[in-house]
């Protein structure tokens, strides 16, 4: 097993002991966090608009900077310099905490994601034995944030949005995790590095091309299930029901402005990337790929998932809240149980 990022840093600094571990951890976390935030900055104000524009046959941002990319700076300045409007009657600590909970819970998930290596440095902050469970656990904290935002805002639309968010997350997290468990059965471990390692074998060779044993290739059904459940988890069309701009204005984020709005939005984008990272790690072989460094492949994979969410967003209708719950409990839950049982049976038979 290769050295983790905090260890590499503390070795490079030459500080041992508790101080070294602490410093390495903080610096490593700062690096990984910044890396993810840069990704969301590129995605949110700029690339998302470019992607949508090409779906819509229009141009998108093109005035500031090359290909309009400096819109990121303009948007950041615009959003942060806006007035933070605090509506009357909001439940203060909860209302203030919600955006932070949302953004940080998603960011926390990246602590255990193996992002591959660059220049011989393995970019992974921690590799606990319960890695996958940890990711799902911290990603679910977002639901608490959503309820806080919806309930504390003292606004009926926010309230409806908060309720919808909880109902939706309940209906989709169980299928999401059950599908994840089917992979754990394959890999025989919850540890992220083990899951990636289990996928590095060659499934079969077609001429000079080796097809890797990625779980997405072994069990495409589980991948499809996971992608659908993940769309609901991150609240993108056809499951953008907690926000549903044309129905409940903006759902739980109706009353947020300025920096809090940025945090909520940021939280959503980090969540999409975290979903992408889980898909990449669990189903697409993590950072594995030919020629290019692992981290590049990792980026390609999470951006592919991001592109998928944007594609759905621009072309699929939003389904109704009762239909969503129906699909979650009656459809996806059954399918994910079936998938789990079949996977367990196959793995059991193969083990014998």
């Amino acid at each position, binding site marked *: 097993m290769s050295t983790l990022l905090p260890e590499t840093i503390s070795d490079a600094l030459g500080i041992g002991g508790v101080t070294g571990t602490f410093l390495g951890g903080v610096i490593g976390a700062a690096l990984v966090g910044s890396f993810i935030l840069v990704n969301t900055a590129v995605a949110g104000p700029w690339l998302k608009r470019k992607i949508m524009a090409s779906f*819509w046959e229009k141009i998108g941002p093109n005035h500031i900077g090359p290909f309009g990319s400096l819109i990121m700076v303009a948007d950041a300045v615009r959003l942060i310099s806006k007035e933070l409007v605090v509506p009357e009657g909001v439940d203060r600590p909860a209302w203030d905490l919600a955006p932070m909970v949302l953004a940080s819970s998603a960011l926390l998930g990246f602590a255990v994601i193996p992002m591959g290596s660059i220049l011989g440095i393995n970019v992974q902050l921690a590799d606990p034995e319960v890695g996958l469970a940890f990711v799902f656990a911290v990603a679910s904290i977002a639901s608490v944030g959503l309820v806080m935002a919806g309930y504390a805002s003292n606004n*009926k639309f926010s309230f*409806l949005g908060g309720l919808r968010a909880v109902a939706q997350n309940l209906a989709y997290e169980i299928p999401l995790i059950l599908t994840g468990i089917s992979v754990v059965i394959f890999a025989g471990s919850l540890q992220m590095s083990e899951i990636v390692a289990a996928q590095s074998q060659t499934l079969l060779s077609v001429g000079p091309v080796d097809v890797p044993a990625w779980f997405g290739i072994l069990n495409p059904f589980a991948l499809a299930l996971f992608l659908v459940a993940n769309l609901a988890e991150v609240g993108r069309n056809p499951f953008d029901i907690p926000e549903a*701009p*044309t129905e409940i204005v903006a759902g739980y984020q109706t009353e947020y402005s300025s920096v809090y709005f940025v945090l909520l939005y940021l939280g959503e984008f980090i969540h999409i990337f975290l979903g992408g990272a889980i898909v990449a790690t669990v189903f697409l072989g993590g950072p594995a790929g030919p020629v290019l460094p692992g981290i590049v492949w990792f980026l390609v994979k999470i951006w592919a998932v991001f592109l998928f969410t944007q594609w759905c*967003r621009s*072309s699929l*209708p939003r389904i*109704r809240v009762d239909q969503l719950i129906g699909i979650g409990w009656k459809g996806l839950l059954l399918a994910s149980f079936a998938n789990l049982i079949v996977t367990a049976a196959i793995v059991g038979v193969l083990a014998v």
Partner: protein
Amino acid sequence: MSLEQPRQRDVGVTPDGELDYDELADLLEEYLLDREEHMNAQGFVVRPDEVAAVLETLREEAGFDHLSLVTAQDYQDRYESIYHLKKYSDPTHELSVVVPTTRENPLSQSAAPVFETANWHEREAYDLVGIEYDEHPDLRRILLPETWQGHPLSSDYNQDQPQIVPLREQADPMEHKTQAPDEQDAMFVNIGPHHPATHGVLHLKTVLDGEQVVDVDPDIGYLHRCEEQMCEQSTYRHQIMPYPDRWDYISAGILNEWAYARTAETLADIEVPDYAQVIRTMSAEMCRIAAHLLAVGTFALDIYGDFTAIFMYAITDREKVQHLLEDLTGQRLMFNYLRLGGLAWDLPEPREEYFENVRNFCEYIPERLEEYHNLLTGNELFQMRVLDTGVLPPEKAKDYGCTGPVARASGIDYDLRRDDPYGYYDELEFDVVTRDGCDNFARASVRLEEIRQSARIIEQCVDLLEDWPEDEREIQSNVPRTLKPDPDTEVYKAVEGAKGELGIYIRSDGSDKPGRFKIRSPAFCNLQSMEVLAEGEYIPDMVAALGSLDIVLGEVDR
């Protein structure tokens, strides 16, 4: 022309399908006070306390199932409500029921128990003119704020009276839950006037039980601009024509202008040259395409969430037809292209190039419709959302006076272009699109198919215009500079607007300006059916139903 033929001949119809007013008068003998001659129909004068009985008899016995409009007006010695009746099976069969009341006691029986659509019409009459309707279920102001003092279209209205009322005297929105639910967990939500789903300044007072709509009460009037009164202060010949563009301002301008042109041309007995009629027909259908594209696009917006591919595609295509309209009229929205007796000017030069552009567009649109069908009507998620939601049964649609795509999606085969032809429509071939679904899906699909039919009409118009002999290209007939129709001439005429039957009632007072100018807004009548569409549905379906009604607040509020 309805699908179901009546079992027997309605009273008052001769065997060759003409209307026999004498027989109708016999039918109503016990109620009839007097008979008036209006230009479009006869007016039967009845007592103000027998309105419901008269309308009931006319609907049940004589088949007048369409209360097109209620006009209220103020004379020196009396108030008057006119109920303009038509038949969905044949809108050329018209009858006006005239109900005079004294100035001292302007109390008239309500028609709302007979025709639901009278509910809002009478509220408007009460609001603006001041006639009170007995037995009306809900006689509140509709366009003006609840605290408004006086009735602005009444001659004893004091314009100088201050109207500023402090907020604390405004009604408490919670008071007006018309059907207050008993359950404790019901929640009152103001959807609008500023809400992404309302397509303008519409305010839906909604009572929710969880996510389900228990009661919805549309509150309109935020965009009331006194259009009727402005038209009453303008001359027939030139000053009124720009106003219709501002009613349904979603690119339906020429359709609206035509409503005024048709009414005023009937009133002043003006002939319109055929050449001008063909160009009118062509440009009006272009407006219909533009309006329907926007309707479909914004409907998709309501179903899909944020701005999505379909909305953008619809706007892109609408832009193409806007270019054609801009080439023709010089304007993109407020066309002001029609004139009484003709048009402002001829087709743009070089004509061949313009014809080619129009033809290209007409060939392009059917291909494009396939794309819309793939993205919308063929999409299973979309079907899941809109099938069997927002159901408007045909009987209800008639009761609420729904017209246009909303009525046709409820299986009512009613289109004034065919049933009460004007312009050049009776020489052209097109199908009236109807659907029996009665739901949100049917309404979207009717609009999509109507775009195809409009393109067909435009192509035929281009064929005609290309072959038109050069020396017969007459765009304007001879119309006097000042029009002064005889005093007390009354006329009500309607055209098929983008949203439905757009009618105008004019009474002349002998001057060069109308004595009363009343607009029958199709969106106003269609919006009233919202309570049928929405109640018991989920919020998302209510939003979809609102989108499928395709209202334009400029036309609702006037």
